[in-house]
């Protein structure tokens, strides 16, 4: 099929989808939506639509990034503004839809924003939402806008135009364009993508391979999952362009098996483009051949490390090996292999269609373009955002994310997952790019940002991440396998008040050795959460060790619950909750907790309505 024909069909499909003259119901059913209950809501919506003869006007779309507001439903009807509704649970569906479609009731109480630019009374425009206003959505250009299962939607919005253009260019020109864009690897290390492609193109050996690393594993990170679920074709197109540039005919997508929806979307998308002749033999009649296969990862975090990932594709145990040789020289089956992360690849089609000049206008001198971040933790608006590199942490956490909820104080933001670090409030004004984060002791990583408030114990945070890395260490090199174990033991001792002052020095010494001696990135960065918290929150460590006290009141081993006799009304609610019978006291008389018996589970603290139980 000629591309013009495909394009024409796509535009027809899009016109049908987007026609202002027709009613339309969009439901966000990405994983975040489904977790919030979008599945049940969708059933009710379909039932309603069937009754109104609108069955073919209901569409499942992806995630707009406003995950905190899921399930999100967009309603559209001629003459009425298009409106995005938040938190539409199953029971809300019928009243909402009846109101909107049958009575023209816009329900401003549930509305989040208007979607087609027009305003409506009491409802903000989407582009003016504080979470949206400062975003620049390149990678997320189609997220939540199109139906991810429909290739025509992707094509209608400019999809595969990048591939068509690239195939009219020489591979060297494509590489030059990517180099000029300044795009750096979005998996975290930030290696210039164009340079990587050039190395692979020039490497000796046939055949060559293109691999998409979709083995996202950092706790709190979900950028890649979201991009695949919402816009699978952007990755496929990016891979096709990469394959043309380096001279590969076979590609692999290495995706976690824990992302079933993402894998389903990819499988569907691959079949669509194979049928259209955009993938396979003689793509678009140019003689270029390229195939893509999906390889499911079996759940090892370390398989996100590129050499371990390649071993896993080959069917071997996923263990890293030393570089050099780099995969661009000797990768899959010893052949030159280009590995890019999901987000990196999703940028590629736009760089080709809009040009490197347009792309590199965003971002900073050394870090061009935009970056997605997954906002999680103690932040008002959790979700997925995309901002130009160089945006300040403060803008991200407070302006876009809405700051720390429940009136608590901001304490730290953790970037880069288990390999990253915790940055304190004094770093809120740094411009987020690769260099600045590294200088502060954290890393860009793949883009997870976990916000912590003043009730978070930083020793416990370090302990949590080290527990993660020690469990996920592949076991190959001794410092990572054993050093993380030793760090975990000391951190656990600190949290339980069993550690001594010398243990802090020993912890730091081990951390430096693990950093210096480990084989791969996992081990080399595993001490980062420890070293950054030691650097910025040393006083918290010392309080644990010296005073046997957890300032954040989180470490169960250091906590005592006491009952303020003044405030206690003797209601016995806590007595009944206590599973170890540690609370004594008659009805209507102040109760007392026996500290010997208490296991500091916190049940009494949670149940007391009079704030009589306090942590000390």
């Amino acid at each position, binding site marked *: 099929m000629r591309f013009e024909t495909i394009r024409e069909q796509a535009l027809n499909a899009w016109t049908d989808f987007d026609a202002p003259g027709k009613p339309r119901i969009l439901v966000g059913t990405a994983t975040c939506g489904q977790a919030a209950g979008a599945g049940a809501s969708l059933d009710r919506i379909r039932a309603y639509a069937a009754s109104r003869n609108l069955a073919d006007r209901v569409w499942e779309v992806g995630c707009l990034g406003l995950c905190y507001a899921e399930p999100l439903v967009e309603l559209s009807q001629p003459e009425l503004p298009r409106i995005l509704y938040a938190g539409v649970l199953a029971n809300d569906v019928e009243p909402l839809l009846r109101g909107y479609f049958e009575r023209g009731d816009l329900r401003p109480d549930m509305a989040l924003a208007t979607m087609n630019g027009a305003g409506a009374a009491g409802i903000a425009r989407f582009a003016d939402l504080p979470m949206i206003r400062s975003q620049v959505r390149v990678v997320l250009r189609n997220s939540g806008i199109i139906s991810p299962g429909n290739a025509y939607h992707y094509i209608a919005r400019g999809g595969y135009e990048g591939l068509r253009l690239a195939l009219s260019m020489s591979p060297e020109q494509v590489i030059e364009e990517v180099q000029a864009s300044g795009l750096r690897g979005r998996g975290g290390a930030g290696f210039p993508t164009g340079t990587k492609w050039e190395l692979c193109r020039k490497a000796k050996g046939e055949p060559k391979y293109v691999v998409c690393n979709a083995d996202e594993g950092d706790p709190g990170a979900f950028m890649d999952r979201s991009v695949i679920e919402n816009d699978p074709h952007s990755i496929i197109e990016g891979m096709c362009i990469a394959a043309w540039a380096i001279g590969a005919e076979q590609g692999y997508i290495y995706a976690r098996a824990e992302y079933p929806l993402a894998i389903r979307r990819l499988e569907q998308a691959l079949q669509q483009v194979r049928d259209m002749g955009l993938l396979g033999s003689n793509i678009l009649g140019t003689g270029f051949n390229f195939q893509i296969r999906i390889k499911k990862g079996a759940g*090892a975090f*370390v398989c996100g490390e590129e050499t371990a990932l390649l071993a896993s594709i080959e069917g071997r*145990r996923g*263990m890293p*090996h*030393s570089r*050099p040789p780099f995969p661009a020289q000797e990768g899959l089956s010893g052949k030159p292999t280009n590995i890019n992360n999901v987000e990196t690849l999703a940028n590629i089609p736009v760089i080709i269609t809009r040009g490197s000049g347009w792309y590199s206008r965003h971002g900073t001198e050394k870090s061009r373009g935009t970056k997605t971040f997954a906002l999680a933790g103690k932040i008002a608006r959790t979700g997925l955002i995309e901002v130009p590199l160089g945006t300040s942490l403060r803008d991200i956490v407070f302006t876009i994310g809405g700051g720390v909820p429940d009136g608590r104080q901001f304490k730290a933001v953790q970037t880069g997952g288990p390999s990253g670090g915790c940055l304190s409030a004094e770093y809120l004004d740094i411009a987020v790019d690769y260099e600045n984060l590294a200088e502060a002791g954290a890393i860009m990583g793949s883009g997870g940002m976990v916000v912590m408030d003043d009730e978070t114990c930083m020793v416990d945070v370090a302990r949590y991440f080290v527990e993660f890395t*020690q*469990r*996920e*260490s*592949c*076991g*190959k*090199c*001794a*410092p990572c*396998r*054993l*050093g*993380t*174990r*030793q760090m975990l*033991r000391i951190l656990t001792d600190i949290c339980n008040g069993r550690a001594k002052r010398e243990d802090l020095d*020993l912890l730091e*010494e*081990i951390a430096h*050795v693990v950093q*210096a*001696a*480990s*084989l791969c990135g996992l081990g*080399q960065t595993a001490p980062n959460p420890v070293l950054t918290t030691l650097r910025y929150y040393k006083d918290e460590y010392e309080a644990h060790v010296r005073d046997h006290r957890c300032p954040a009141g989180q470490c169960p081993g250091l906590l005592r619950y006491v009952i303020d006799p003044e405030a206690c009304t003797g209601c016995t609610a806590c007595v009944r909750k206590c599973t170890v019978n540690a609370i004594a006291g008659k009805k209507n008389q102040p109760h007392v907790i026996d500290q010997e018996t208490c296991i500091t589970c916190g049940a009494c603290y949670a149940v007391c309505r009079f704030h009589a139980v306090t942590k000390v």
Partner: protein
Amino acid sequence: MPTLTIDGRTVEAKPGATVLQTALDAGIYIPHLCHDEQLEPYGGCRMCIVDIDGSRGLPAACTTQVAEGMVVRTDTEPVNRVRRMVCEMMIADHPDECLSCTVNQTCGLQKVAAYLGVRSQRLATTGRQAVTDASNEFFHRDLRKCILCGLCSRVCHELLGVGAIDIAGRGFASRVTPFGDTGIGESTCESCGQCVDICPVGALTGKNEALPPVRTVNTICPYCGCGCGMELGIRNNRIVRVRGDRGNPASRGSLCVKGRFGLDFVSASDRLTTPLIRRNGRLEAATWNEALDLVAARLIAIRTAHGAAAIAGFSSAKCTNEENYLFQKTMRAAIGTNHVDHCARLCHASTVAGLARAFGSGAMTNSIAELEHSDCIFVIGSNTTEAHPIVALRIKAAARHGAQVIVADPRRIDLVRFAAVHLRQQSGTDVALLNAMMHVILQEGLADEEFIRARTEGFAAWRPTVIDFTPEQGEAITGVPADRIRQAARIYARSRQATIVYSMGITQHTTGTDNVLALANLAMLTGNLGKEFTGVDPLRGQNNVQGACDMGALPNVLPGYQAVDDAAVRDKFENAWSAALPDQPGLTVVEIMHAAVAAEIRALYVMGENPMVSDPNLNHVRKALAATEFLVVQDIFLTETARMADVVLPAAAFAEKDGTFTNTERRVQRVRRALDPPGQARPDWQILGDIARRLGYPMQYRHPAAIMAEIAAVTPIYGGVSYDRLQPHGLQWPCPDADHPGTPYLHQDTFKRGRGLFHVTPFRAAAELPDAEYPYLLTTGRVLYQYHTGSLSRRTQGLERIAPPGTFEIHPRDAEREGLAGGDPVRLYTRRGSIEARAIVTSRSPEGTLFMSFHYGEAAANTLTNDALDPVAKIPELKVCAARLEKRPDTTGGR
């Protein structure tokens, strides 16, 4: 050659070498625990981190390639501080049991800790829970002591190609384990023990290694023809540990399960310790003088009464070159008969006959080490993994480096896992298969015209005989699809350097010589001869079967393949030996048996052979041995044959004497005395000297070195061989003079016979094929865990438990037809006899074919086999006969 600076010293490195290997080669120690030069760089223990100018962080020396001008410091305080902490981590994760550990003082972790000066223990012990596993017959696994260096699993994957173990789990739960966390005894482990050898700590230890050896002796393995170097660890006149000799060019430190763990026979309690004489029908202990006098007197009496031609001798492929030389010299010069033969008749007689005709020399043309660099290896009729395990390692390595392996074997043997093509020809149809392949090569213009023109003769007469034989005709006879025949032919012929490897599957047929000639034709047709990494390589089955042939333990040739019927040769030997020599070729093994039944042979002297298990048609062998007037058996055990003897002479085992073995690649290697023989047992060379003297032919030598000097003087191919030249790598014959370096591959510029000769080899069917009465094709072979007649391997209990006697393989469809389940007892019949055995139901053997190993006297497959002979080589057809089976009631309740 890149030059770099290590600790201020200028060091030259091999291009592509690692910093660690370069430093170690230059005598600069860098601590390391997971490195082995035979394996791919790993970088796991991180002990070898070094400081390199301009390098980010502290790279591991084992995974860093040298570069010109590199400046490396191996011993700085920052580097050692990091190493010390990593070492402390390992010690904290390791049981505190050094004093009671088998490897105390030889432990790699102790060595590194000592080098780094780790004294205090600041880290808490991890208390890792780990299994101990005693399920292997030969070694213990104590994973509490494991440091996860991965050497064991890597050697198992990379070097052995077995992959029985790998690291499983993640993080702190990582462990070396077989698939499914079973005991290693239930895994695919072949018990070669290479992992035990390479383990740097006490996690893997031999079960017999409670006390370390007090001294070590380097010698050569007594089992198959690979000729592996071994280091015997000796304590209290017993072998307590066996390790591979890394300096040995054939084996490079590898050993199989038999070599490493199967030497219990040496100190077995039933070794013969005194001469025995049959009195009143019973074998009774006697003195050496009584026994030797009796032997001499009876032989002289029989010679006087019936002539020297009434006496025959079987020499031994297990004995040294020196002993074989003396045996045939005794038979020829002291007794006067050419009736001397040995078990080579039963294995490679057709090779000697075939290759001698085609090329002029009947031995492996190229060397074992060359296999690894060949582009294509055509393995036909050789279950290499089981019969020649260490040669198989080179084939597997070649496959790993990208060589194409073609396997032609009716059974799905282990090497099929590494093969590009598997041709499952019907047993006994090899000539048809090869002719069809050569048809393809000719048809498709893949022949090496230049080689054929310049180096061969007989091509024009031969060509028409295959040009009409299409792959489709080949398919009709062999059962191999024609397209697969074409594919194999193309792979072989298009490879730059292709090697043929074969063994008993080719030779033990009535068409054995034709099979060999067809292979020779194939190699000549494609020019794969006279160059490195090519050739026709018959794998010899016994540790010294090559040497026994070289030494003239054959009825038609004197040492060095010099014909007995050549008067000039006889003149030379008569002068050298001061004796008249018989001028007619003698009888072969099977012919001697027939002659004994016919009372033409009246006395038989058997040195280190056990025809009562090894020879075809055993009922006939029993009749023959019983018919002799006088039977002498010289052995280390009272074998099935020795039990029938009139005199039994107790001999020394391989570890109890000096001498040489010649392995399958013509490499003459030193065998060294490590132990005293038990009781009154004596080395064969001394016994033979005493017999000869009593026969009136003085033959005394001080030491085997003196015998070798005599061998060199009369045997041109051994002309340059002497004991002082055999250090450290041995010599490959031909080695005509003292300055000759030996010959890794034959026929370089010219064939031994001048030009290579094409022979016409039309297809002939096997002597006995399945029919209505005997519907199955029975074939025999070896298993990895046993050896030949079992007199050595079966004395190691672990081997016996892994491979117990009395089983045969049958295809599932045949089993279903016969109503058989695995383990069912069966009686197998052929026209020659019957035995009991239990069924192993497996598709390894093809439908219609039964497979049985021949190692077991009590269920001897050779009761069944056919003694029909190849007309040229007189080798019996051990690989094909017709059989039937009868299901038996199970009286034991199954196994």
